[in-house]
């Protein structure tokens, strides 16, 4: 075994050197060797101590007892003890081996002195002597000797290619205009390869539509392009294709794969997430509007901070185990797994880094420590899986106001029917979720809400809304200034500024610091005529404590003379539990009056039902946020083994976010988002342009698209990758700009036909001597079928359709539908994504089950795929539609065949093909012809 490995090692070394010399990057290697050698040579002189000398006193102990396993030969747990620098760096475990000046906290001392003989170092030997331990302690405790070592460790350079600053490279001067072609041509020449000639216009337009829209072009689109002889015809076509909304639907698919988006929770219950689709639509719209990629990132990590609430659907797009047992230890592990999913996905999707590897130990290949992992956990520790309420849309809000006015007027009319014990004109009791105060229009500058009693504790308001002319003028964004009698200190989620920030719910609320009392005041912009105020304790309906039960609202123009405009006096008393409703009595009045009263009450009930619908905020599965407690590094990733507390941060070797341990939750995510979405982050742009490249050509320039670390592969064209990344940033992070550059390159427009001499050199076509053809993904096949049969419904957005009949048990069961109708003929991106389960017909075409991040789908070819396309009810039904379409659009047999070819393959048939088809039709029928066409290789392959 050893020998075999050594041999592999040697051949790798040989190959590597050869290659490195060839491409001239041995600079890195030499630097690295120099660094190591320098490290080893200089240690002796780095730090000396008067009492304990490393060479004289420490090293002999380590050499005798430790270095066999933790030295240059073995380095178990990646720990080496042959130098002070490597000792200070520590090993895999992430434990702090040496804490300078604090031997009692140092893992080294812990491991040599522990009573537990299984854990004690050195293993299978008697413990080190008292004296030896004392020498090691003194060595660790001498802070002055460690200073220079710490400096040296901090200054160590990272030389991995993807972590080097991005510098726009020179475009090779080879006489072509598109820089992409220049880089590609250079590499082809180096390898004695030539590119292929331009593909036919028919192939090109078909390729363009399949890759960019996931739909075939219509025969009319093909004809129009063929007849356009203008030299800019291709560019115009590319522009047009990038403008169509089907573009966003296609490219969102790739992103949703990457961020493991699903519309069920997964795990055993696999329940629905009925509000998750808004994130899917948000991604589609982001691509269609060419949202700058830096904004796209920030909005997904901290959209709640920048007015794009739906974006944070990203954070919670992954699976979530609804089943929480009572055992606290296992619950902690579940929470750790949830957070790991967020950390891993963020690292993979945006940075191409495998952050998850550092959960249990320091990353083996990349400069990511275990501490970094838990610092990132502190960033996400306040994110919970849940639906979040969105602000009520303006139109809905307007209707709500109308209804409130009608309710108010009816309640006043009905007041006469309330028995004597309630005073006349009594309004409903306050509620935790919604209270409306209507009054005669009044001039106001200052509005003060004074609370004299609560249902419990200090009062809480999630938002105070003051309306002038139908607009909430209390909003800080409209110039409203909030002040208060006092504020509960120490809670990020409870702050005065939340009173008028336009956000609802307990996590954006104000609480006074006085039990049962307090006031808040809004100074609005100028003097305005106001006529309505709305307030609540928690519009999300989760909390009903701290509710103001006795209050008054007063207005002032000068902050000294006040006029009370509303109060709790005319409300029914609050009773906890549920809202008190007045009881109306219609006895003792004339039958006509009673009849009229009953009619009003009916109207009131109808209106109230309507109101509660209108008051419902739309929701999105985008998580909720709470201020987390301290986060600790976990030894070996075990929740039962917490170590030191960590601050929220990213990767220390790459950045310092300078956040305090108790930083507000949202600030943490925002800081990480800004670090990622920054031109100085060497990974972000490189990773994204590589993904774009991958989905254009089938393979990225780096073919480990989610690992740009040392365990990933080098780019085939490093210069091109960096040039594209720089161009991406300089274009304002425009995805479409990069795509247009690719689509208008000769490289992309080459023929895909294999050439044997080039295949012999580069069978995978990584050097792009041709355009690599490939099979469409499941979505492309299904959408193509619906397109050619004329059934496709291109309606965009909204709630999706289901591929399953759902058995609504506690644990959901999904049975594939067997009957299909027009509701199923939307594009597949709108098929509700059920985790684990795949669509019964198209799922076998490598559809991901959205449990894990998928940066690129595998492409397998199986007999089950063939059976599904040949025999499924879905395909046969579509074949029938196809026949009907052919019949309605063409007359003769030959015309029908021609039409079918044009629809399915974007080309007319050759003469021999018509003959073959006619021959087949003589013994079979049109349905069978259609069935064969929809199964053909030419139909499902990108040419």
């Amino acid at each position, binding site marked *: 075994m050893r020998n075999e490995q050594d041999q592999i090692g040697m051949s790798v070394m040989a190959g590597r050197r050869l290659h490195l010399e060839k491409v001239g990057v041995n600079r890195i290697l030499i630097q690295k060797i120099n660094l190591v050698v320098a490290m080893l040579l200089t240690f002796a002189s780095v730090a000396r101590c008067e009492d304990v000398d490393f060479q004289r006193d420490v090293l002999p102990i380590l050499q005798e007892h430790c270095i066999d396993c933790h030295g240059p030969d073995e380095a178990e747990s990646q720990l080496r003890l042959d130098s002070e620098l490597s000792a200070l760096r520590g090993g895999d475990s992430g434990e702090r081996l040496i804490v300078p000046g604090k031997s009692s906290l140092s893992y080294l001392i812990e491991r040599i002195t522990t009573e537990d003989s299984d854990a004690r170092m050195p293993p299978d030997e008697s413990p080190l002597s008292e004296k030896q331990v004392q020498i090691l302690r003194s060595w660790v405790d001498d802070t002055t000797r460690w200073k220079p070592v710490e400096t040296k460790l901090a200054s160590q350079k990272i030389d991995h290619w993807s972590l080097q600053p991005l510098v726009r490279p020179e475009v090779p001067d080879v006489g072509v205009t598109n820089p992409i072609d220049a880089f590609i041509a250079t590499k082809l020449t180096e390898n004695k390869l030539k590119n292929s000639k331009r593909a036919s216009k028919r192939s090109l337009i078909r390729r363009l539509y399949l890759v960019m829209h996931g739909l075939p072009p219509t025969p009319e689109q093909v004809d129009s392009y063929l007849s356009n002889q203008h030299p800019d015809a291709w560019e115009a076509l590319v522009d047009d294709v990038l403008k169509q909304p089907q573009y966003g639907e296609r490219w969102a698919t790739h992103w949703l794969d990457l961020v493991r988006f699903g519309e069920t929770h997964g795990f055993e219950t696999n329940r629905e997430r009925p509000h998750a689709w808004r994130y899917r639509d948000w991604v589609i719209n982001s691509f269609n509007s060419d949202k700058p990629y830096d904004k796209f990132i920030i909005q997904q990590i901290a959209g709640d901070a920048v007015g794009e609430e739906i974006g944070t659907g990203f954070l919670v797009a992954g699976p979530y185990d609804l089943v929480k047992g009572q055992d606290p230890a296992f619950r902690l592990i579940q929470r750790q797994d949830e957070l790991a999913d967020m950390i891993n996905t963020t690292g993979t999707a945006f940075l191409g*880094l495998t952050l*998850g590897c550092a959960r249990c130990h320091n990353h083996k290949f990349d400069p990511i420590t275990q501490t970094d992992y838990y610092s990132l956990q502190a960033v996400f520790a306040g994110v919970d899986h849940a639906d979040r309420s969105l602000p009520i849309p303006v139109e809905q809000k307007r209707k709500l106001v109308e209804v409130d006015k009608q309710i108010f007027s009816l309640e006043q009319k009905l007041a006469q029917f309330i028995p004597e014990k309630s005073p006349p004109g009594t309004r409903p009791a306050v509620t935790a979720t919604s209270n409306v105060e209507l009054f005669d229009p009044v001039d106001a500058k200052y509005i003060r809400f004074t609370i004299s009693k609560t249902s419990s504790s200090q009062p809480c308001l999630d938002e105070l809304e003051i309306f002038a002319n139908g607009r909430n003028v209390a909003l800080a964004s409209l110039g409203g200034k909030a002040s208060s009698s006092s504020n509960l200190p120490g809670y990020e989620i409870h702050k005065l500024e939340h009173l008028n920030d336009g956000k609802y719910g307990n996590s954006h609320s104000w609480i006074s610091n006085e039990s049962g009392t307090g006031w808040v005041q809004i100074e609005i912009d100028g003097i305005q005529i106001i006529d309505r105020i709305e307030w609540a304790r928690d519009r999300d309906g989760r909390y009903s404590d701290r509710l103001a039960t006795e209050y008054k609202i007063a207005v002032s123009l000068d902050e000294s003379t006040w006029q009370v405009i509303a109060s709790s006096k005319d409300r029914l008393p609050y009773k906890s539990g549920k809202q008190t409703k007045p009881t109306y009595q219609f006895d003792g009045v004339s039958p006509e009056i009673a009849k009229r009263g009953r009619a009003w009450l009916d109207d009131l009930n109808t209106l109230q039902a309507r109101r509660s619908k209108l008051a419902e905020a739309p929701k999105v599965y985008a998580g909720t946020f709470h201020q987390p407690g301290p986060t600790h590094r976990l030894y070996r990733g075990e929740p039962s083994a917490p170590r030191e507390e960590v601050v929220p941060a990213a990767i220390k070797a790459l950045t310092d976010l300078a956040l305090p341990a108790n930083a507000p939750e949202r600030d943490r995510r925002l800081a990480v988002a800004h670090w990622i979405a920054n031109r100085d982050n060497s990974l972000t742009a490189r990773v994204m342009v590589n993904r774009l490249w991958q989905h254009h050509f089938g393979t990225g320039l780096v073919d480990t698209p989610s690992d740009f670390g040392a365990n990933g*592969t080098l780019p085939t064209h490093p210069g091109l990758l960096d040039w594209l990344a720089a161009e991406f940033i300089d274009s304002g992070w425009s995805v479409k700009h990069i795509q247009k550059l690719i689509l208008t390159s000769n490289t992309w427009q080459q023929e895909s036909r294999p050439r044997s001499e080039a295949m012999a050199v580069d069978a995978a076509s990584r050097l792009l001597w041709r355009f690599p053809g490939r099979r469409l993904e499941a979505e492309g096949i299904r959408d193509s079928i619906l397109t050619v049969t004329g059934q496709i419904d291109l309606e965009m957005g909204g709630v999706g359709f289901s591929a399953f009949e759902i058995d609504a048990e506690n644990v959901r069961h999904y049975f594939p539908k067997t009957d299909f109708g027009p509701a199923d003929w939307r594009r597949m991106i709108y098929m509700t994504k059920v985790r684990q389960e795949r669509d019964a017909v198209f799922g076998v075409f490598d559809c991901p089950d959205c449990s894990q991040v998928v940066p690129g789908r595998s492409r397998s070819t199986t007999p089950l795929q063939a059976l599904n396309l040949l025999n499924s009810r879905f395909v046969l039904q579509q074949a029938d539609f196809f026949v009907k379409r052919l019949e309605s659009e063409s007359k003769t047999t030959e015309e029908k065949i021609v039409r079918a070819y044009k629809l399915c393959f974007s080309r007319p048939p050759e003469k021999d093909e018509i003959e073959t088809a006619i021959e087949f039709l003589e013994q079979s029928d049109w349905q*069978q012809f259609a069935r064969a066409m929809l199964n053909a290789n030419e139909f*499902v392959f990108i040419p």
Partner: protein
Amino acid sequence: MFKQQPTRRQLLIDSANGLGGIALASILQQQGLLASEKKPLRPNIDSSQPFGSRESHFPARAKNVLMIFCSGACSQLDTFDYKPELINRHGQPLPGAEDLVTFQGSQGNLTKSPWEFKPRGESGKMVSELVPMLGELADDMCFIHSLTGKTNTHGPGENFMSTGYTLDGFPSMGAWTTWALGTENQDLPAYVAIPDPRGTPQSSVNNWGPGFLPAAYQGTDFNATKPLRNLDRPDGINAASDRQTREFLQKLNRRHLQQFPGDSELSARIASYELAARMQLSVPEVSDLTTESKSTLKMYGADDTENPLKASFAKNCILARRLVEEGVRFVQLFNGAYQTGGEGVSNWDGHKALEKQYAKHGPVLDQPVAALLKDLKQRGLLKETLVVWCTEFGRMPTFQAGASGRDHNPKGFTAWLAGAGVKAPFTYGATDEFGYKAVENVATVYDFHATILHLLGLDHERLSYYHNGIERRLTDVHGHVIEDIIA
């Protein structure tokens, strides 16, 4: 036939040839590190035959695997893990369990099994009266009583037993196996999952999912009553017409291929239609139990009119034997489902009324599986087939506070193996005196998986797939082959 991310090996070969400028810049830095780790061994997959039988890493003891999975967490204490002290201390508290909170909450007292344990076979292995016919075969079994898991929740637990990860989305053991080894019979799916007649298990298709392996290696699920979807020629299309259509299709495809000479993906797709046609013949044939003799049906209990559920599960057992017989590489047979009742009613999740529920489940499992084992043995198939009986985790020796059933317990549970390559009769590991925690030869599910792969001739540390920057294995970074149980 498969396009996947390039293997490290390919990369190394590419760079050694100086091609493509692909290289791992920092590999020199890592040499010291990697040399101490085992290199991945990728299956050599012929693109025209993705399921072609492939060489194992070293000589295999077992050619194929039949995994019998009792969904819902079958109690070790009421089946195979005999604990006299539990009987002696019946009704007393579990020492140290005052504050113990398990999945559903706090504990009642230690409770002996409602079923008596009796010595079985020549080995005298104590097996309960709940599964007496399985007990009779104790001499053919290799028990592991000291399995430990990582979760106490069903979904993650089933995932863990089937895929080695508690999370969703990782390849199942069957997917790993068929990816590595292909299969013997090209006309049948390489990997078949047979769901219980009552429905799918708690973690449903994730139990036989491909994870990030190519979709080809997912389990194909059908059972004796629920045929393979889209296998049959559609209604209204006669056989001749169907054949003509395929011929026409292949004509279209061959003509198209002429423009793309040497494109393996296109020719693979042509081949897949031919394979599909063969499968249309062979799958109905293997599922047709009418050719089984009356005595066989009787032996399995497939003719039991008084217990139709048992009869139905028995048919799945016969189907399992037929698949093994035909050379299917990996068969996963489920007993218990969630659909038709949930907690304990249609599976082994006996929280509240264990005696009543297990009294129904025992007979459904016992005779059919015992017959399956006997049948495999008498046909000589046990020589090449490894039978694995398992469940997601075990149950508590106590009853739950205020209930007549046992809560989840991943700290010590039982599985057994039989057939190719394992010692029998044999017992490995033990739980404590009450059957609560594994204390002797403690084994993890990783060890269990490593051992099964080992018997298939696969090194669990080298069978890996590069995904999202990580060399993924069935056993993650854990697992040791349990050498003691290998014959």
